[in-house]
């Protein structure tokens, strides 16, 4: 995350938001941040078996979103970016 020089330090608010998204993800999924990391690595390994991918350029983004459309109250999604 780039910042201009007049933002003299990493503002605590953005640190808080990053930490919260990690912690809440683990809480909601009922699994620890370490387990989330392992899961991401294993997902990449599975994809490597079927696709030509560059592991160093890929990120897996785990996000839990709530959607109310079509009668579905909760949707838990895993987004894979960088393909």
């Amino acid at each position, binding site marked *: *995350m*780039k*910042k*201009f020089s007049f*933002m003299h330090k990493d*503002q*605590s*608010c*953005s640190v*808080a*938001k990053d*930490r*919260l*998204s990690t*912690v*809440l993800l683990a*809480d*909601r999924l009922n699994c620890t941040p370490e387990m989330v990391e392992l899961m991401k690595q294993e997902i990449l390994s599975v994809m490597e078996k079927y696709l030509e991918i560059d592991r160093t350029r890929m990120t897996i983004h785990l996000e839990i*979103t*709530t959607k109310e459309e079509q009668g579905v*109250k*909760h949707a838990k999604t895993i987004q894979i970016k960088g393909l």
Partner: protein
Amino acid sequence: MSEVIVITSGKGGVGKTTATANIGMGLARMKKKTVVIDTDIGLRNLDVVLGLENRIVYNMVDVIEGNCRLKQALIKDKRCPELSLLPSAQTRDKSAVTPEQMIKLTEELKEHFDYVLLDCPAGIEQGFKNAIAGAERAIVVTTPEVSAIRDADRIIGLLEAAEFRNIDLLINRIRPDMVRRGEMMSVEDVVEILAVNLIGAVPDDEEVVISTNQGEPLAGDDTQAGQAFFNVCRRILGEEVPLLEFEQTTGFLSKISGLFHRGR
């Protein structure tokens, strides 16, 4: 059509009791017959925040156990007769009542009041389960801090599991100066993280401490917090009220920095 609303948070000390007292007083000042119930058995506080501590004769546990009639335990506020308090018991604990008994109590209260507000204790155990039992709607109180938001998220999950359809968020103790400096999460940040409808944002206001010292709720007063709480009441009644000046926390500088944060 009466509404039963539980005011909860998970985390302690974020302002549930203050919110219950002020939302209750605000609704009463709008001429709605309102009862506020302190469900924190063993650690009662709603009476003291409302300045009614000297008028307690009977309490909620007495009513449930049949030691007295409901009317004998209810304390009508002399400043605003539309508001009544059902106080908690100080010398018992949370095992003194069951969720089923709470449902029976709120059903009876619905016959006499337009709004039944339950001040929930902190935590997720028996006290929480009792407080939510008879409620149809929840207001989750949080502050813009990491631990409060984490607990609020957990509480929202538990409420959804208990099939609450109507969950609103109240963000308390906002410091717009800290938000502008990027050292406190904004209203928008918190709403985005918790993904729940916002019913109000209350600034950190010295007047709240003064009002508790004096036992005089400030909803509807000319103070920042008083106006914010009053707006919560208006929104509960269905009015569309825009967030007040001090409630909005996106200033010029944070709008600029916001452009760069979006790349995340």
